[in-house]
């Protein structure tokens, strides 16, 4: 279990974490669809993602809200499509999703991708501000989330949902309890600090910070965790985020709703 830490995101390129698989189709078989109806010329921006991955969903929602033209390149993580040599050499050397190829410029890491496209004028300013002071406020959240909610929610999801599926072994109650405590320590900070005075994480309107955070938290539904029970502010905020992002939010979370057996309104 080397690189357990990267592996816990379920997107590791680490060999010990590789799920054995036989790719049914190579990358050539990767499903590619064109999003916008108006496709006079094919966009030169390719977006590689899997809606099972939290940051993939966040970027998907952001791209859709931005009305950006891009080519949809779905990478099926469960079939190990990201683990092929072809993916490594031609698409993303880290063998993860999401990533982009913008006319030959390859970029990984969701926050870096967002910033790059914003600098190119593709992301509306209300989602990611251009003025550096306002941008600083959103960046503060985007940098904070990695080692706090991202890592703890992902670890919770992975240990309780993904690992048992891959290994057939279920975690002990004590282990689940520890993971929950770590995760809730960070959810507490969202509830008490980030959402202390505002409707959204970084102010009075929706930004990419909310989208990244919501996608991370929604993932825990699949591990039967209901964030809404203990956290009234998070509950109300999640509703606002979903409303502000729909229909794209529900499209992106289609699998999460399906796998968890919970629709957005359902009680867990």
């Amino acid at each position, binding site marked *: 279990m080397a690189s357990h830490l990267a592996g816990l995101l379920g997107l590791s390129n680490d060999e010990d974490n590789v799920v054995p698989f036989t790719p049914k189709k190579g990358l050539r078989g990767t499903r590619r669809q064109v999003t916008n109806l108006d496709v006079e010329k094919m966009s030169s921006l390719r977006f590689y993602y899997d809606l099972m991955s939290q940051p993939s969903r966040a970027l998907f929602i952001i791209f859709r809200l931005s009305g950006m033209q891009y080519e949809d390149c779905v990478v099926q993580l469960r079939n190990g499509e990201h683990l092929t040599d072809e993916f490594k050499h031609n698409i993303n050397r880290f063998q993860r999703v999401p990533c982009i190829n913008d006319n030959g410029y390859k970029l990984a890491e969701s926050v870096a991708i967002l910033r*790059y496209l914003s*600098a190119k004028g593709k992301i509306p300013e209300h989602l990611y501000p251009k003025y550096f002071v306002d941008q600083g406020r959103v960046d503060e959240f985007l940098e904070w989330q*990695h080692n706090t909610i991202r*890592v703890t929610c992902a670890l919770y999801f992975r240990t309780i949902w993904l690992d048992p599926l891959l290994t057939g072994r279920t975690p002990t109650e004590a282990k689940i309890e520890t993971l929950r405590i770590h995760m809730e320590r960070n959810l507490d900070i969202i509830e008490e600090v980030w959402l202390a005075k505002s409707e959204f994480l970084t102010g009075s309107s929706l930004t990419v910070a909310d989208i990244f955070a919501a996608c991370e938290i929604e993932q825990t539904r699949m591990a039967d965790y209901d964030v809404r029970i203990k956290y009234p502010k998070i509950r109300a905020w999640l509703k606002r985020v979903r409303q502000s992002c729909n229909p794209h939010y529900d499209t992106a979370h289609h699998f999460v709703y399906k796998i968890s057996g919970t629709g957005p309104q359902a009680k867990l």
Partner: protein
Amino acid sequence: MSKAIKYYYDLLSPPSRALWIALKLAKTPFEDCPVALRKKEQLTDEYKRINRFQKVPALVDGNFHLSESVAMVRYLADSKKLTEQLYPTSLEERGRIDEYLEWQHLNLRLPCSLYFREAWLFPANGIKPKPKQEQIDKLVKNVEAGFGQLERLWLEKDYLLGPNLTVADLFSSSDIEQLKLCQYTVSEKKFPKVAKWLDRVREASQPHHELAHAFLNKKPQQAAQSKA
């Protein structure tokens, strides 16, 4: 905002050191605001008003309070307080350095800080006993998985992002230097590129590097005592 920014830091914290060195290299004036973590100064109500997350580093520029070192780098660069070499402005170079800065959180910073906490910080402060060898081996394995990726995926040129020193080098070398307290040194045999790169970063950021790491370069036992 013509007044100098206030910089809150403790040189025991790797990102604090990295930003401190960056500010020194850029010759950016700042008001020195040390926060002694060993005295838990970050947990006071007074400091909570500076940084609601009660962590270092943090900066205050007029009425604007900001935490998270990478966010601070961007803010400083956009307000012309860092050199273009340290955090490039061109679209593609900036994309590349951002890719690194986002990547390092979980792939390098997290394993380094977990190892440091378990193997040095907690035992030295009597919070937890020293972990078993088996546990240490696991922590080291995670750290070295990160080094392996630096070696294979990042260090193609002299520095992480190319021929010049950037904040990316300062952040990661600082995280790795921290491990000296755990008596860990990067093996030249196992990670030749990483070992040489660490020397290069040290050289390129002198004399500030030496000053920022003075505490770490004491013998680990001594440091442990002065901490306790």
